[in-house]
């Protein structure tokens, strides 16, 4: 089953705010596509799982291992070998810090450090409130405005360390507003 992008995003967000998806039916549809006990399909199956959840949940990896008859440690080994696989759900906002050459020359290391300090997480991690995921990219392709970071669809060029708290605050406030809006809808 290939979910529409919108639904997929919905799944992501659901997980993002801590809702658990009962996924066994989804898994059945994935497993039906592949022969059992065939290790060669591991990567394809993991890609399908990630398409549904946006990441690879631990329980699902165990199910995948049982299905292709491979120990969990080896499935986990493959999942951590490739950069395409994520083992934690994405946060609501994904921050990508460019660590390409031009940005590096323009101090992107400090930008990254400032973000890590501000969010209290390391690169590749997600904040506890699931609002932000911090990632690094080899090159965003916007060297002319280096150093550059990208949050969701938006690009922030020629930024300085002192801009970081302001930017983060903007997204935090947005999230707060949304939460309040949701609550009022619920109470009505």
């Amino acid at each position, binding site marked *: 089953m290939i979910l529409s992008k919108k639904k997929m995003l919905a799944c992501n967000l659901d997980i993002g705010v801590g809702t658990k998806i009962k996924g066994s039916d989804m898994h059945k549809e994935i497993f039906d596509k592949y022969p059992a006990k065939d290790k060669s399909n591991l990567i394809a199956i993991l890609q399908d799982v990630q398409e549904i959840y946006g990441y690879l949940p631990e329980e699902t990896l165990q199910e995948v291992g049982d299905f292709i008859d491979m*120990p969990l*440690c*080896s499935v*986990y080994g493959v999942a*951590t*070998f490739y950069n395409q696989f994520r*083992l934690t759900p994405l946060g609501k906002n994904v921050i990508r810090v460019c660590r390409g050459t031009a940005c590096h020359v323009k101090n992107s290391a400090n930008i990254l450090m400032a973000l890590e300090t501000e969010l209290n997480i390391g690169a590749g991690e997600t904040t506890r409130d699931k609002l932000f995921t911090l990632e690094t990219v080899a090159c965003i392709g916007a060297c002319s405005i280096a150093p550059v970071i990208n949050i969701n669809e938006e690009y922030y060029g020629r930024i300085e360390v002192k801009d970081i708290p302001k930017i983060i605050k903007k997204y935090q406030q947005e999230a707060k507003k949304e939460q309040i809006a949701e609550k009022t809808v619920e109470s009505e």
Partner: protein
Amino acid sequence: MVELTINNVKVKAEEDMTILDAAKSVGISIPTLCHMKDLFPTGACRMCVVEVDGMRGLTPACAYPVTEGMKIDTNSPKVRQARKTIVELLVENHPQDCLICVRNKNCELQDLSEVYGLREHRYVGDKKDHAIDISSASMERDPAKCILCGRCTRTCNEVQKVGAIDFTNRGFQSNVTTPFNKGLNISDCILCGQCILVCPTAALREKSNSKMVFDAINDKRKFVVVQVAPAVRASLGEEYNMPLGTNVTGQMVTGLRRLGFKKVFDTNFAADLTIMEEGTELIDRVSNKGTLPMFTSCCPGWVKYIEQNRPQLLKHVSSCKSPHEMEGAILKSYYAKKMGLDPKDIFVVSIMPCTVKKFESDRPELSQEKMADVDAVLTTRELVRMFKMAGIDFNDLPEDEFDNPLGESTGAAAIFGTSGGVMEAALRTAYKVMTGEELVSMELDDIRGFSGVKEASIKVNDLDVNVAVVNGIGNVDQVLDEIEAGTSKYHFIEVMACPGGCINGGGQPIHQKPEKVRKRVSVLYDIDKNAKNRRSHENEAVQKIYDEFFEKPNSHKSHELLHTSYVDRKAILRKK
């Protein structure tokens, strides 16, 4: 046959030989790290590179087959330089705390560093930084010391087929670890310790209890007693440069007395007792249509495996405690009463060839009134370290004998330490009990040796009793599948998690040679052959303990003290 030259020496080799084997056959040694005999070569570590005439670059000797007319140089400047660089890079990404390392002077990385003459630090850079995993009761994992040779992962996945650890991540972040980097205690690991035996460094090691034992010995209120498993006496001499296959029972007893143990007992006594209990349980199951086949329960690694993977089959496992736990239970009941001691003051130490026994002794099921049957378990390796620390010169020790009444044993108990031994011992006694006659041939060659699953059939009265012996936990799944499918023809199955049995247990001296295991086995079979009594029911001390205390095998009292229950660990691990 093909002919080739290695370092200008003419060599005749079989066609399917690798360069490594061919060189070895003429006394040319090539260093290896990732290479494992009998497993498919991976060629990952590149330590074994050699120069082959006409080939571009360097060739890994462990993975390359010989061909006619090959000209090989294993010692060219290019080869030496390449190997030295590999060692240098490994050493620079290693903690280099050899002086305080448990594998000091018994480390392959240290040896290679010496062989290739490392005298300076040529590379400086980041070092990997991983926390030590001390979560399990038996083993420690120190990934910072890991050189990523992969021998542990191959042992775990290909030999034992447990699949607890594997390579994760990539490049500098590469790490051999459990799924989600969780502790070994909540992984699929059965703590068999076979990975420790193949680890070239101290990345995998047992969790040491020696301080706890020294403390107990020095505690004047404690009555500290020790018991020794059959396999320990067959391997201990190796650590003191004695010839392979030396039986050091006598010296070992003296050594333990000098270490400060009040009494030195033999786990073999409890092995005889196990046979009485387990044999009776089998006869009961066969004659009363109980659950068959019945599995032995002496091996805690096997018990942990079935608890974690096939809890639905736990009713097939004998309810008997393993021998050292039985011995502990008797020491704190029968023996304490007899000697007028408070069971709480008795501190029981087991010297075992095994790492899982540490975990086993912590099991809450194996205790009476919140008092563990066995208080501490030491591996053979830890015992050697304690001997050294206490200044006991093992080579010059006089011989001594075990204390009684829990020191007497038969030949049947001695072979408990090797694959097939428990089965053989059980059959000797069960046959006698069921038919009233002695087994004609005492030595059952069908179930000796090193094959994966060994089987035999013995006619007892009108019944053909089919038995199987599973040697190494990696071979157990086929037997379990048969049982689940309802097609198993067996009545009684012995399982030992380590290939070869306890004699090759995860707590034994580190070795890399399979021949060593065979030599150790011969010690146990010799003890059996020369024993006065070779059947467990002939053990007079065991007969006496039944007369005085337990009444008969599988009595109410023996069920209380000598039998146990099991836990569904799959439910715990999988959280379902």
